[in-house]
């Protein structure tokens, strides 16, 4: 069973994303409400992938991603950024950081797991 960590400061986004991935894909879902908690949970649980919100207080998604990349224990975990920023320049900047994919909010609850699987090359 795939294990995915959702890092987002918004309760409703975490709840809906977790529902989608558990119900449709049958994945185990872990959640974190901040970048620092996300790093801690990634170290403790070694998820197969991390779905990381871009805009969060204190430590935003890109900064959290950099911390994950600097740690040899978390460097190899693929990270997908989740963003409501629609401007192409923002999307390109995020993609250039080396994340596995940049997914847009709002997401389609029925196809979120398919988007993640496709981005990571996971078998369906």
């Amino acid at each position, binding site marked *: 069973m795939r294990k995915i960590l959702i890092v987002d400061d*918004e*309760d*409703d*986004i975490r*709840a*809906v994303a977790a*529902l*989608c991935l558990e*119900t*449709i*894909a049958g994945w185990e879902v872990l959640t974190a409400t901040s970048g620092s908690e996300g790093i801690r949970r990634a170290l403790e649980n070694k998820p197969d992938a991390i779905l990381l919100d871009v*805009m969060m207080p204190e430590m935003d998604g890109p900064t959290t991603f950099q911390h994950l990349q600097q740690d040899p224990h978390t460097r190899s975990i693929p990270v997908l950024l989740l*963003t*409501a920023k*629609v401007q192409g320049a923002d999307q390109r900047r995020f993609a250039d950081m080396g994340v596995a994919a940049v997914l847009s*909010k*709002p*997401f*389609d*609850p*029925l196809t979120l*797991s*398919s988007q993640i*699987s496709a981005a990571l090359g996971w078998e*369906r």
Partner: protein
Amino acid sequence: MQQTPAQAAQLQAAMAQVWQKSLPLLRDRVNTLGRALAAIQADQLTPELRANAALEAHRLAGLLGTFGYPEGTDAARMFEIVFDSDAILQPGLGETLAPALTTLQTIVTT
């Protein structure tokens, strides 16, 4: 990853519960946009309220479409673009944004 009808129904039921639970917070967010709009019309928009409204609009834009309200995402996006810009906001902008606020208010009172 093709979902079964039973999975889709289960997901929709669970999402309906999340929606009901989220409504008070969503109403607060829309109310913030309403206060910001009133402040524009009174030419009394503070930088703090503008920044807060931009953040709340961003959050609404990123969420409402997931719950099946793409028109809510579009309306919130209008607010986000306006409040997140460097432009000086003129009182007349209130009329332009009023329909978007009505759209959002309608969604969070369902």
